[in-house]
């Protein structure tokens, strides 16, 4: 069975090409993925991300629960509305999912987790929550629209109730607040995203989602499919769960070490495994690659290094750089000259520090 977001008919009416995405019938593009990509880099584009799972957590011990559940530390969240990116690990230090946690107060937090991992995430969270008497409440009645690009914030803010505009204008990165949208609809506006551009991710009650989408179209925001979302996030150096990491990959091996908080005395799930791996030395690393030759780096291609074989994780043609870029997981140590096997031909690739693109421009050294 394929699930549909409340915007499904809207996408079809706009001529979207629909594909199955983790059990959801979603738009991959509305014509040209590359044009949509450039719209986000240069102006403003929007994505229906209503398939993502919103989970509210309630109870006096919610903060303690999240200190146990997440590898990053919710103690960093001190102001209501602040958000944090974190991995949720198993006991082996493998990544069950990556997510964003929003802080309302010590007894109320919100998680936004991936669509494809919804069922296992909910099962895991509920199982862990029992010891803390935390109530886990999925919020399927919410839709979500990501509006991204250098002009995205301006276009969204113009649609808000006048009284809310100065406050949302001042919203810092990785912070969220409630605001009134067109016709007084209640919005939860977060200055987050998955494209490497500024913008908002907006949570809206389903019954208002079509009207909000239409208001954004009228404001000149270009509808963009999940195809463009994928090339944008890859250029921005952001991991995709299932492709760049999974339950058999630790944050160390997925370049997510920066999201682990070894704060003193906090016993989070996976901590001892991560510490053991660190002490032993991490065997595999995730790197960025650029192919200067013609061709496209793709998931699953073999990567040859002086230390042995690795593989391409996320790989694609980069519309901004007009060449192929990828993440790869390779053996740790000096890799020497790196080559990628594309249909039996070994092509040289360059190891680079990513992000590949930030704020619309190629990064230095790319």
């Amino acid at each position: 069975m394929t699930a549909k977001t409340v915007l499904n008919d809207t996408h079809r009416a706009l001529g979207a090409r629909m594909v199955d995405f983790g059990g959801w019938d979603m738009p991959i593009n509305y014509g040209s993925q590359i044009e949509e990509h450039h719209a986000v880099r240069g102006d403003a584009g929007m994505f229906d991300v209503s398939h993502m799972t919103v989970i509210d957590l309630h109870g006096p011990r919610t903060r303690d629960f999240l200190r146990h559940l997440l590898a990053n530390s919710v103690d960093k969240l001190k102001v209501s509305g602040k958000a944090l990116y974190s991995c949720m690990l198993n006991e082996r230090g493998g990544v069950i999912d990556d997510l964003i946690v929003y802080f309302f107060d010590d007894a109320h937090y919100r998680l936004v987790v991936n669509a494809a991992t919804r069922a296992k995430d909910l099962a895991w969270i509920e199982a862990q929550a029992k010891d803390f008497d935390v109530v886990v409440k999925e919020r399927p009645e919410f839709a979500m629209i990501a509006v991204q690009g250098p002009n995205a914030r301006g276009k969204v803010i113009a649609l808000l109730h006048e009284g809310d505009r100065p406050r949302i204008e001042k919203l810092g990165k990785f912070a969220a607040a409630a605001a009134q949208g067109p016709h007084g609809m209640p919005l939860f506006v977060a200055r987050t995203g998955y494209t490497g551009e500024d913008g908002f991710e907006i949570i809206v009650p389903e019954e208002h989602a079509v009207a909000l989408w239409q208001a954004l179209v009228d404001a000149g925001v270009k509808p963009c499919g999940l195809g463009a979302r994928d090339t944008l996030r890859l250029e921005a150096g952001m991991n995709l769960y299932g492709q760049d990491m999974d339950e058999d990959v630790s944050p160390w091996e997925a370049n997510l070490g920066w999201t682990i908080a070894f704060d003193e005395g906090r016993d989070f799930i996976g901590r001892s495994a991560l510490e053991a791996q660190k002490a032993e030395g991490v065997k595999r690393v995730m790197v960025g690659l650029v192919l200067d030759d013609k061709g496209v780096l793709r998931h699953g291609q073999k990567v040859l290094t002086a230390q042995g074989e690795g593989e391409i994780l996320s790989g694609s043609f980069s519309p901004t750089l007009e060449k192929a870029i990828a993440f790869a997981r390779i053996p740790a140590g000096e890799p020497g000259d790196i080559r990628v096997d594309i249909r039996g031909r070994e092509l040289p690739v360059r190891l680079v520090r990513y992000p590949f693109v930030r704020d619309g421009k190629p990064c230095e050294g790319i």
Partner: protein
Amino acid sequence: MSEIPGDLKFLKSHEWARVEDDGTVRVGISDHAQAALGDLVYVELPEVGASVQAGNGVAVVESVKAASDIYAPVSGEIVSVNEALTDKPETINEDAFGDGWLFVIRPSDRGELDELLDADAYAEQIENEDH
């Protein structure tokens, strides 16, 4: 979706073949195929002079989304390839049945052309795919 030209023959795998006045066979991918692949970014063409077998992969087109093998509709020798695609692969998106052609084969067995789908049969196949 543009009209399918009636003088074309098709493989089920969405390659088209057109018999030219000089008896050679020009090959490309259908408009339906380019739309399904999305923006094309790279084309790997065969060598001129290479001999090819009907049904074998002889070229590759890559979109942002995926790489796709292109099969030879007939056996024979490659007599020309569309070099312009190397710099402008998006030509296939813009004009799949015209300027977006891939290569030309001098067929060794013209009887193989009879095995291909005609335009109506191909139209019916993609109609069924969409349901």
